[in-house]
Protein backbone atom coordinates (compact mmCIF):
# COMPACT_ATOMS: atom_id res chain seq x y z
CA UNK A 1 0.00 0.00 0.00
CA UNK A 2 1.19 3.45 -0.90
CA UNK A 3 -0.12 6.13 1.37
CA UNK A 4 0.38 9.86 1.80
CA UNK A 5 -0.54 11.59 5.03
CA UNK A 6 -1.06 15.34 5.01
CA UNK A 7 1.64 15.42 2.37
CA UNK A 8 2.73 18.94 1.48
CA UNK A 9 5.39 20.34 -0.80
CA UNK A 10 6.05 23.98 -1.40
CA UNK A 11 8.55 25.55 -3.73
CA UNK A 12 9.22 28.96 -2.24
CA UNK A 13 5.81 30.54 -1.87
CA UNK A 14 4.12 28.13 -4.29
CA UNK A 15 2.35 25.21 -2.63
CA UNK A 16 2.44 22.42 -5.22
CA UNK A 17 0.92 19.68 -3.04
CA UNK A 18 -1.26 20.79 -0.17
CA UNK A 19 -2.01 18.40 2.70
CA UNK A 20 -2.88 15.47 0.49
CA UNK A 21 -3.90 12.30 2.33
CA UNK A 22 -4.65 9.33 0.16
CA UNK A 23 -4.22 5.57 0.09
CA UNK A 24 -3.49 3.50 -2.97
CA UNK A 25 -4.31 -0.18 -2.67
CA UNK A 26 -2.97 -3.16 -4.56
CA UNK A 27 -5.13 -4.54 -7.35
CA UNK A 28 -6.26 -1.22 -8.70
CA UNK A 29 -5.39 1.01 -11.60
CA UNK A 30 -5.63 4.64 -10.56
CA UNK A 31 -5.98 7.55 -12.94
CA UNK A 32 -4.52 10.67 -11.38
CA UNK A 33 -6.21 13.62 -12.98
CA UNK A 34 -5.97 17.36 -12.92
CA UNK A 35 -4.82 20.19 -15.16
CA UNK A 36 -1.11 20.87 -15.57
CA UNK A 37 0.39 22.34 -12.44
CA UNK A 38 -2.19 20.79 -10.14
CA UNK A 39 0.45 18.79 -8.30
CA UNK A 40 0.23 15.32 -9.84
CA UNK A 41 3.87 15.17 -10.87
CA UNK A 42 5.12 16.53 -7.56
CA UNK A 43 3.09 13.93 -5.66
CA UNK A 44 4.55 11.14 -7.79
CA UNK A 45 8.09 12.41 -7.42
CA UNK A 46 7.69 12.44 -3.65
CA UNK A 47 6.42 8.85 -3.81
CA UNK A 48 9.45 7.98 -5.93
CA UNK A 49 11.70 9.56 -3.29
CA UNK A 50 13.09 12.10 -5.74
CA UNK A 51 11.54 15.07 -3.99
CA UNK A 52 11.52 15.44 -0.22
CA UNK A 53 8.24 16.61 1.31
CA UNK A 54 8.05 19.96 3.07
CA UNK A 55 5.76 18.35 5.63
CA UNK A 56 3.63 15.26 6.02
CA UNK A 57 4.59 11.74 5.15
CA UNK A 58 4.61 9.37 2.26
CA UNK A 59 4.68 5.70 3.19
CA UNK A 60 5.15 2.50 1.25
CA UNK A 61 4.06 -0.57 3.22
CA UNK A 62 3.88 1.58 6.36
CA UNK A 63 7.44 2.89 6.04
CA UNK A 64 8.65 6.23 4.68
CA UNK A 65 9.75 5.94 1.06
CA UNK A 66 13.47 5.86 0.41
CA UNK A 67 16.18 3.54 -0.81
CA UNK A 68 14.19 0.43 0.12
CA UNK A 69 10.93 1.45 -1.52
CA UNK A 70 12.72 2.23 -4.77
CA UNK A 71 13.28 -1.49 -5.17
CA UNK A 72 9.54 -1.97 -5.49
CA UNK A 73 8.27 1.27 -6.99
CA UNK A 74 8.89 1.80 -10.69
CA UNK A 75 8.55 5.45 -11.61
CA UNK A 76 8.44 6.90 -15.09
CA UNK A 77 8.83 10.65 -15.29
CA UNK A 78 7.40 12.80 -18.06
CA UNK A 79 10.78 14.15 -19.02
CA UNK A 80 13.50 12.04 -20.60
CA UNK A 81 16.34 11.42 -18.20
CA UNK A 82 18.76 8.92 -19.75
CA UNK A 83 22.45 9.75 -20.13
CA UNK A 84 23.03 11.15 -23.58
CA UNK A 85 25.69 8.59 -24.47
CA UNK A 86 23.24 5.72 -24.05
CA UNK A 87 21.77 3.50 -26.71
CA UNK A 88 18.52 1.69 -26.06
CA UNK A 89 20.61 -1.38 -25.20
CA UNK A 90 22.61 0.64 -22.64
CA UNK A 91 19.39 1.82 -21.00
CA UNK A 92 18.35 -1.81 -20.52
CA UNK A 93 21.74 -2.73 -19.09
CA UNK A 94 21.57 0.20 -16.69
CA UNK A 95 18.22 -0.98 -15.34
CA UNK A 96 19.50 -4.53 -15.21
CA UNK A 97 22.47 -3.33 -13.15
CA UNK A 98 20.35 -1.55 -10.59
CA UNK A 99 16.94 -3.24 -10.39
CA UNK A 100 16.64 -6.84 -9.30
CA UNK A 101 13.12 -7.01 -10.69
CA UNK A 102 14.19 -5.97 -14.18
CA UNK A 103 13.88 -8.59 -16.91
CA UNK A 104 16.04 -8.13 -19.99
CA UNK A 105 13.90 -10.63 -21.84
CA UNK A 106 10.75 -8.67 -21.15
CA UNK A 107 12.55 -5.44 -22.07
CA UNK A 108 13.60 -6.84 -25.44
CA UNK A 109 10.07 -8.02 -26.10
CA UNK A 110 8.59 -4.63 -25.22
CA UNK A 111 11.18 -2.79 -27.31
CA UNK A 112 10.16 -4.95 -30.26
CA UNK A 113 6.47 -4.30 -29.68
CA UNK A 114 7.14 -0.57 -29.54
CA UNK A 115 9.01 -0.83 -32.85
CA UNK A 116 12.29 0.35 -31.40
CA UNK A 117 15.74 -1.11 -32.04
CA UNK A 118 18.40 -1.73 -29.44
CA UNK A 119 21.15 0.04 -31.35
CA UNK A 120 19.25 3.33 -31.49
CA UNK A 121 20.90 6.20 -29.63
CA UNK A 122 18.63 7.81 -27.04
CA UNK A 123 19.97 11.23 -28.03
CA UNK A 124 18.52 10.93 -31.52
CA UNK A 125 15.09 9.51 -30.62
CA UNK A 126 11.98 11.45 -31.56
CA UNK A 127 9.77 12.44 -28.64
CA UNK A 128 7.32 9.66 -29.47
CA UNK A 129 10.05 7.03 -29.53
CA UNK A 130 11.50 8.37 -26.29
CA UNK A 131 8.07 8.10 -24.68
CA UNK A 132 7.83 4.46 -25.79
CA UNK A 133 11.32 3.68 -24.54
CA UNK A 134 10.52 5.09 -21.11
CA UNK A 135 7.41 2.94 -20.89
CA UNK A 136 9.20 -0.18 -22.11
CA UNK A 137 12.06 0.11 -19.63
CA UNK A 138 9.71 0.91 -16.73
CA UNK A 139 7.31 -1.95 -17.47
CA UNK A 140 10.20 -4.37 -17.92
CA UNK A 141 10.52 -4.22 -14.16
CA UNK A 142 8.36 -6.61 -12.18
CA UNK A 143 7.62 -3.93 -9.61
CA UNK A 144 4.88 -3.76 -6.98
CA UNK A 145 3.98 -0.19 -7.87
CA UNK A 146 4.14 1.43 -11.27
CA UNK A 147 3.80 5.19 -11.44
CA UNK A 148 3.60 6.43 -14.99
CA UNK A 149 3.48 10.17 -15.44
CA UNK A 150 1.74 11.03 -18.72
CA UNK A 151 2.32 7.68 -20.45
CA UNK A 152 0.32 8.68 -23.53
CA UNK A 153 2.09 11.98 -24.08
CA UNK A 154 3.62 12.35 -27.52
CA UNK A 155 2.37 8.94 -28.58
CA UNK A 156 0.26 8.55 -31.69
CA UNK A 157 -3.19 6.99 -31.65
CA UNK A 158 -2.19 3.52 -32.85
CA UNK A 159 0.68 3.16 -30.43
CA UNK A 160 -1.60 4.20 -27.57
CA UNK A 161 -3.54 0.97 -27.95
CA UNK A 162 -0.32 -1.01 -27.75
CA UNK A 163 0.72 0.87 -24.64
CA UNK A 164 -2.65 0.36 -23.03
CA UNK A 165 -2.34 -3.35 -23.70
CA UNK A 166 1.15 -3.44 -22.17
CA UNK A 167 -0.03 -1.59 -19.09
CA UNK A 168 -2.98 -3.95 -18.65
CA UNK A 169 -0.74 -6.95 -19.14
CA UNK A 170 1.25 -6.03 -16.04
CA UNK A 171 -1.66 -4.99 -13.85
CA UNK A 172 -2.52 -7.62 -11.30
CA UNK A 173 -4.02 -8.21 -7.89
CA UNK A 174 -0.82 -7.54 -5.98
CA UNK A 175 0.20 -4.43 -7.87
CA UNK A 176 -0.67 -0.76 -7.80
CA UNK A 177 -0.78 1.17 -11.04
CA UNK A 178 -0.91 4.92 -10.97
CA UNK A 179 -1.26 6.73 -14.27
CA UNK A 180 -1.47 10.44 -14.73
CA UNK A 181 -2.69 11.92 -17.95
CA UNK A 182 -4.49 14.90 -19.25
CA UNK A 183 -5.80 12.66 -22.04
CA UNK A 184 -8.73 11.67 -19.84
CA UNK A 185 -10.56 9.66 -22.50
CA UNK A 186 -7.56 7.37 -22.93
CA UNK A 187 -7.95 6.19 -19.37
CA UNK A 188 -11.71 5.69 -19.06
CA UNK A 189 -11.63 1.94 -19.54
CA UNK A 190 -8.13 1.26 -18.19
CA UNK A 191 -8.51 2.76 -14.75
CA UNK A 192 -10.99 1.61 -12.15
CA UNK A 193 -10.42 4.49 -9.76
CA UNK A 194 -9.84 8.16 -10.39
CA UNK A 195 -8.01 10.62 -8.17
CA UNK A 196 -8.89 14.22 -8.86
CA UNK A 197 -6.30 16.76 -7.78
CA UNK A 198 -7.12 20.41 -7.87
CA UNK A 199 -4.60 23.14 -7.14
CA UNK A 200 -2.57 20.85 -4.93
CA UNK A 201 -5.60 19.56 -3.00
CA UNK A 202 -7.14 16.14 -3.17
CA UNK A 203 -10.61 16.77 -4.57
CA UNK A 204 -11.89 13.18 -4.47
CA UNK A 205 -11.21 9.54 -5.22
CA UNK A 206 -13.98 7.74 -7.04
CA UNK A 207 -14.69 4.20 -8.16
CA UNK A 208 -15.45 4.67 -11.84
CA UNK A 209 -17.89 1.82 -12.44
CA UNK A 210 -19.84 2.82 -9.33
CA UNK A 211 -19.98 6.38 -10.59
CA UNK A 212 -21.22 5.21 -13.99
CA UNK A 213 -23.86 3.00 -12.38
CA UNK A 214 -25.11 5.52 -9.84
CA UNK A 215 -24.80 8.80 -11.70
CA UNK A 216 -24.55 7.72 -15.32
CA UNK A 217 -21.52 9.89 -15.89
CA UNK A 218 -18.08 9.17 -17.26
CA UNK A 219 -14.71 10.09 -15.80
CA UNK A 220 -14.44 12.84 -18.40
CA UNK A 221 -17.84 14.19 -17.30
CA UNK A 222 -16.70 14.30 -13.70
CA UNK A 223 -13.49 15.97 -14.83
CA UNK A 224 -15.50 18.71 -16.50
CA UNK A 225 -17.68 19.14 -13.42
CA UNK A 226 -14.66 19.59 -11.19
CA UNK A 227 -12.44 21.70 -13.38
CA UNK A 228 -15.06 23.16 -15.71
CA UNK A 229 -14.89 26.68 -14.38
CA UNK A 230 -11.12 26.67 -14.59
CA UNK A 231 -9.68 27.53 -17.90
CA UNK A 232 -9.33 24.17 -19.61
CA UNK A 233 -6.01 24.56 -21.30
CA UNK A 234 -4.65 21.14 -20.62
CA UNK A 235 -7.37 19.02 -22.12
CA UNK A 236 -5.79 18.93 -25.55
Amino acid at each position, binding site marked *: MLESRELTKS*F*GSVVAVDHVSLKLEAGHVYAMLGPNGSGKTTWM*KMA*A*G*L*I*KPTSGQILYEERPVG*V*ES*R*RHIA*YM*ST*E*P*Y*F*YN*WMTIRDVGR*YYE*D*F*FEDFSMERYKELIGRMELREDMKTRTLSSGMMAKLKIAVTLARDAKVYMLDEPFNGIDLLARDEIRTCILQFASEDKILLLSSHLVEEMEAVADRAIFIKQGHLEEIVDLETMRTEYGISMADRYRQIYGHEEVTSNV
Partner: protein
Amino acid sequence: MFKLMKYEFRKTQATKLILLAIIAIAEIAFLIGLYGNYDMTAGLSIVALVFLSFLGVFVVGLESITILHRDMNTRQSYMLFMTPNSSYKILGAKVLECGLSILLAGAFVFALGALDITLAVAREQGLNSLWEMIQNFLSHITINGRQLEIDAPILAATFLNILTSWIMTIVSAYLAVVISAALLNGKKFNGLISFVLFLLLNWGAAKLLGLIPDTMSSVATLLVYVAVELVLSAIMYVVTAEIMERKLSV
Protein backbone atom coordinates in the same frame (compact mmCIF):
# COMPACT_ATOMS: atom_id res chain seq x y z
CA MET B 1 28.91 0.15 -5.48
CA PHE B 2 31.06 -1.22 -8.27
CA LYS B 3 28.19 -0.73 -10.71
CA LEU B 4 27.78 2.90 -9.69
CA MET B 5 31.52 3.43 -10.12
CA LYS B 6 31.36 1.85 -13.54
CA TYR B 7 28.86 4.48 -14.66
CA GLU B 8 30.80 7.28 -12.99
CA PHE B 9 33.79 6.18 -15.03
CA ARG B 10 31.65 6.07 -18.16
CA LYS B 11 30.72 9.71 -17.63
CA THR B 12 34.36 10.81 -17.47
CA GLN B 13 35.82 8.41 -19.98
CA ALA B 14 35.92 10.86 -22.91
CA THR B 15 37.99 13.42 -21.00
CA LYS B 16 40.31 10.73 -19.73
CA LEU B 17 40.89 9.39 -23.21
CA ILE B 18 41.69 12.88 -24.47
CA LEU B 19 44.19 13.40 -21.64
CA LEU B 20 45.75 10.05 -22.44
CA ALA B 21 46.02 10.96 -26.11
CA ILE B 22 47.77 14.24 -25.28
CA ILE B 23 50.19 12.43 -22.96
CA ALA B 24 50.84 9.92 -25.73
CA ILE B 25 51.71 12.76 -28.12
CA ALA B 26 54.15 14.23 -25.59
CA GLU B 27 55.67 10.80 -25.08
CA ILE B 28 56.12 10.30 -28.81
CA ALA B 29 57.77 13.71 -29.02
CA PHE B 30 60.12 12.65 -26.22
CA LEU B 31 61.03 9.42 -27.99
CA ILE B 32 61.65 11.25 -31.26
CA GLY B 33 63.81 13.76 -29.40
CA LEU B 34 65.68 11.03 -27.61
CA TYR B 35 66.42 8.84 -30.60
CA GLY B 36 66.80 11.69 -33.07
CA ASN B 37 69.26 13.45 -30.78
CA TYR B 38 67.11 16.57 -30.54
CA ASP B 39 67.94 17.40 -26.93
CA MET B 40 65.68 20.38 -26.87
CA THR B 41 62.66 18.37 -28.00
CA ALA B 42 63.33 15.63 -25.50
CA GLY B 43 63.78 18.10 -22.67
CA LEU B 44 60.68 20.09 -23.51
CA SER B 45 58.52 17.03 -23.86
CA ILE B 46 59.64 15.79 -20.47
CA VAL B 47 58.60 19.12 -18.98
CA ALA B 48 55.34 18.81 -20.90
CA LEU B 49 54.78 15.31 -19.52
CA VAL B 50 55.31 16.45 -15.95
CA PHE B 51 53.05 19.45 -16.52
CA LEU B 52 50.39 17.29 -18.18
CA SER B 53 50.26 14.86 -15.29
CA PHE B 54 49.51 17.71 -12.91
CA LEU B 55 47.02 19.22 -15.32
CA GLY B 56 45.42 15.81 -15.76
CA VAL B 57 44.83 15.42 -12.04
CA PHE B 58 43.34 18.91 -11.97
CA VAL B 59 41.05 18.30 -14.93
CA VAL B 60 39.84 14.95 -13.59
CA GLY B 61 38.88 16.59 -10.30
CA LEU B 62 37.22 19.55 -11.95
CA GLU B 63 35.18 17.32 -14.22
CA SER B 64 34.09 15.19 -11.30
CA ILE B 65 32.71 18.33 -9.62
CA THR B 66 30.84 19.52 -12.72
CA ILE B 67 29.37 16.04 -13.18
CA LEU B 68 28.12 16.04 -9.60
CA HIS B 69 26.56 19.42 -10.28
CA ARG B 70 24.81 18.03 -13.34
CA ASP B 71 23.77 14.90 -11.42
CA MET B 72 21.96 17.08 -8.87
CA ASN B 73 20.53 19.83 -11.00
CA THR B 74 19.35 18.28 -14.27
CA ARG B 75 16.93 15.50 -15.26
CA GLN B 76 19.96 13.26 -15.36
CA SER B 77 19.68 13.18 -11.55
CA TYR B 78 16.81 10.67 -11.85
CA MET B 79 19.25 8.12 -13.22
CA LEU B 80 21.02 8.02 -9.87
CA PHE B 81 18.26 8.81 -7.44
CA MET B 82 15.62 6.45 -8.79
CA THR B 83 17.94 3.50 -8.14
CA PRO B 84 17.84 1.78 -4.75
CA ASN B 85 21.17 3.25 -3.69
CA SER B 86 21.68 5.41 -0.63
CA SER B 87 23.24 8.84 -0.92
CA TYR B 88 26.31 7.43 0.84
CA LYS B 89 26.78 4.94 -1.95
CA ILE B 90 26.06 7.39 -4.74
CA LEU B 91 28.50 9.93 -3.35
CA GLY B 92 31.00 7.28 -2.31
CA ALA B 93 31.11 5.89 -5.84
CA LYS B 94 31.96 9.37 -7.10
CA VAL B 95 34.74 9.93 -4.56
CA LEU B 96 36.21 6.48 -5.09
CA GLU B 97 36.06 6.65 -8.84
CA CYS B 98 37.72 10.04 -8.84
CA GLY B 99 40.39 9.01 -6.31
CA LEU B 100 41.05 5.77 -8.13
CA SER B 101 41.38 7.58 -11.44
CA ILE B 102 43.92 9.97 -9.98
CA LEU B 103 45.79 7.09 -8.36
CA LEU B 104 45.89 5.09 -11.59
CA ALA B 105 46.85 8.14 -13.61
CA GLY B 106 49.65 8.81 -11.10
CA ALA B 107 50.88 5.24 -11.32
CA PHE B 108 50.72 5.40 -15.08
CA VAL B 109 52.68 8.67 -15.29
CA PHE B 110 55.19 7.34 -12.77
CA ALA B 111 55.69 4.17 -14.81
CA LEU B 112 56.01 6.22 -17.96
CA GLY B 113 58.58 8.46 -16.29
CA ALA B 114 60.56 5.45 -15.11
CA LEU B 115 60.46 4.00 -18.59
CA ASP B 116 61.61 7.25 -20.13
CA ILE B 117 64.49 7.60 -17.72
CA THR B 118 65.54 4.01 -18.40
CA LEU B 119 65.43 4.68 -22.11
CA ALA B 120 67.40 7.86 -21.65
CA VAL B 121 70.01 6.01 -19.57
CA ALA B 122 70.26 3.39 -22.29
CA ARG B 123 71.15 6.17 -24.72
CA GLU B 124 73.88 7.65 -22.61
CA GLN B 125 74.39 10.76 -24.60
CA GLY B 126 70.81 11.85 -23.85
CA LEU B 127 71.16 11.22 -20.17
CA ASN B 128 73.10 14.24 -18.99
CA SER B 129 70.91 16.90 -20.52
CA LEU B 130 67.76 15.08 -19.43
CA TRP B 131 68.93 14.72 -15.86
CA GLU B 132 69.72 18.43 -15.78
CA MET B 133 66.28 19.24 -16.99
CA ILE B 134 64.66 17.12 -14.30
CA GLN B 135 66.81 18.57 -11.55
CA ASN B 136 66.19 22.02 -12.81
CA PHE B 137 62.49 21.40 -12.72
CA LEU B 138 62.48 19.83 -9.29
CA SER B 139 64.53 22.63 -7.79
CA HIS B 140 61.49 24.82 -8.30
CA ILE B 141 59.37 22.60 -6.11
CA THR B 142 59.62 23.23 -2.42
CA ILE B 143 57.75 21.85 0.53
CA ASN B 144 57.41 24.05 3.58
CA GLY B 145 60.10 26.27 2.16
CA ARG B 146 62.59 23.49 2.05
CA GLN B 147 64.30 22.40 -1.07
CA LEU B 148 63.04 19.04 -2.17
CA GLU B 149 65.53 16.26 -1.83
CA ILE B 150 64.83 13.52 -4.24
CA ASP B 151 64.51 10.09 -2.78
CA ALA B 152 61.93 7.39 -3.06
CA PRO B 153 60.09 7.80 0.30
CA ILE B 154 59.75 11.53 -0.24
CA LEU B 155 58.46 11.02 -3.74
CA ALA B 156 55.93 8.45 -2.54
CA ALA B 157 54.79 10.62 0.37
CA THR B 158 54.53 13.65 -1.87
CA PHE B 159 52.50 11.72 -4.35
CA LEU B 160 50.22 10.44 -1.60
CA ASN B 161 49.82 13.94 -0.25
CA ILE B 162 48.90 15.34 -3.64
CA LEU B 163 46.29 12.61 -3.94
CA THR B 164 44.71 13.16 -0.53
CA SER B 165 44.79 16.94 -0.62
CA TRP B 166 43.17 16.90 -4.00
CA ILE B 167 40.54 14.42 -2.81
CA MET B 168 39.88 16.73 0.12
CA THR B 169 39.47 19.67 -2.25
CA ILE B 170 37.06 17.66 -4.39
CA VAL B 171 35.01 16.48 -1.41
CA SER B 172 34.76 20.06 -0.14
CA ALA B 173 33.55 21.08 -3.59
CA TYR B 174 31.00 18.24 -3.43
CA LEU B 175 29.78 19.59 -0.11
CA ALA B 176 29.44 23.08 -1.56
CA VAL B 177 27.59 21.78 -4.63
CA VAL B 178 25.22 19.69 -2.50
CA ILE B 179 24.51 22.54 -0.10
CA SER B 180 23.78 24.71 -3.09
CA ALA B 181 21.43 22.13 -4.65
CA ALA B 182 19.73 20.90 -1.48
CA LEU B 183 19.55 23.86 0.87
CA LEU B 184 19.91 27.02 -1.19
CA ASN B 185 18.01 25.87 -4.26
CA GLY B 186 16.12 28.75 -5.78
CA LYS B 187 17.63 31.28 -3.38
CA LYS B 188 19.46 34.39 -4.50
CA PHE B 189 23.24 34.24 -4.89
CA ASN B 190 23.04 30.47 -4.55
CA GLY B 191 26.07 29.85 -6.77
CA LEU B 192 28.12 32.61 -5.15
CA ILE B 193 27.33 31.45 -1.63
CA SER B 194 28.36 27.90 -2.39
CA PHE B 195 31.58 29.09 -4.02
CA VAL B 196 32.43 31.23 -0.99
CA LEU B 197 31.63 28.25 1.19
CA PHE B 198 34.03 26.14 -0.85
CA LEU B 199 36.78 28.75 -0.38
CA LEU B 200 36.08 28.93 3.35
CA LEU B 201 36.25 25.16 3.74
CA ASN B 202 39.60 25.08 1.99
CA TRP B 203 40.91 28.05 3.92
CA GLY B 204 39.86 26.33 7.14
CA ALA B 205 41.55 23.11 6.09
CA ALA B 206 44.74 24.98 5.16
CA LYS B 207 44.73 26.72 8.56
CA LEU B 208 44.34 23.39 10.29
CA LEU B 209 47.18 21.87 8.30
CA GLY B 210 49.29 24.91 9.13
CA LEU B 211 49.01 24.03 12.83
CA ILE B 212 50.96 20.84 12.28
CA PRO B 213 54.44 21.41 13.79
CA ASP B 214 57.26 21.39 11.33
CA THR B 215 59.72 19.57 13.57
CA MET B 216 59.52 16.13 12.05
CA SER B 217 61.20 14.76 8.97
CA SER B 218 59.65 15.71 5.64
CA VAL B 219 58.20 12.26 5.15
CA ALA B 220 56.58 12.20 8.59
CA THR B 221 55.13 15.68 8.11
CA LEU B 222 53.70 14.68 4.78
CA LEU B 223 52.14 11.56 6.28
CA VAL B 224 50.50 13.61 9.04
CA TYR B 225 49.13 15.87 6.32
CA VAL B 226 47.78 12.85 4.53
CA ALA B 227 46.08 11.59 7.69
CA VAL B 228 44.52 14.96 8.51
CA GLU B 229 43.31 15.40 4.95
CA LEU B 230 41.75 11.95 4.96
CA VAL B 231 39.93 12.62 8.24
CA LEU B 232 38.64 15.98 6.98
CA SER B 233 37.53 14.36 3.72
CA ALA B 234 35.68 11.66 5.64
CA ILE B 235 33.89 14.24 7.81
CA MET B 236 32.84 16.30 4.81
CA TYR B 237 31.76 13.16 2.97
CA VAL B 238 29.45 12.16 5.82
CA VAL B 239 28.00 15.66 6.10
CA THR B 240 27.42 15.83 2.34
CA ALA B 241 25.75 12.41 2.17
CA GLU B 242 23.52 13.24 5.16
CA ILE B 243 22.35 16.46 3.53
CA MET B 244 21.61 14.58 0.32
CA GLU B 245 19.72 11.86 2.14
CA ARG B 246 17.58 14.23 4.18
CA LYS B 247 17.14 17.35 2.14
CA LEU B 248 17.95 16.89 -1.51
CA SER B 249 15.09 17.13 -4.00
CA VAL B 250 16.07 16.54 -7.57
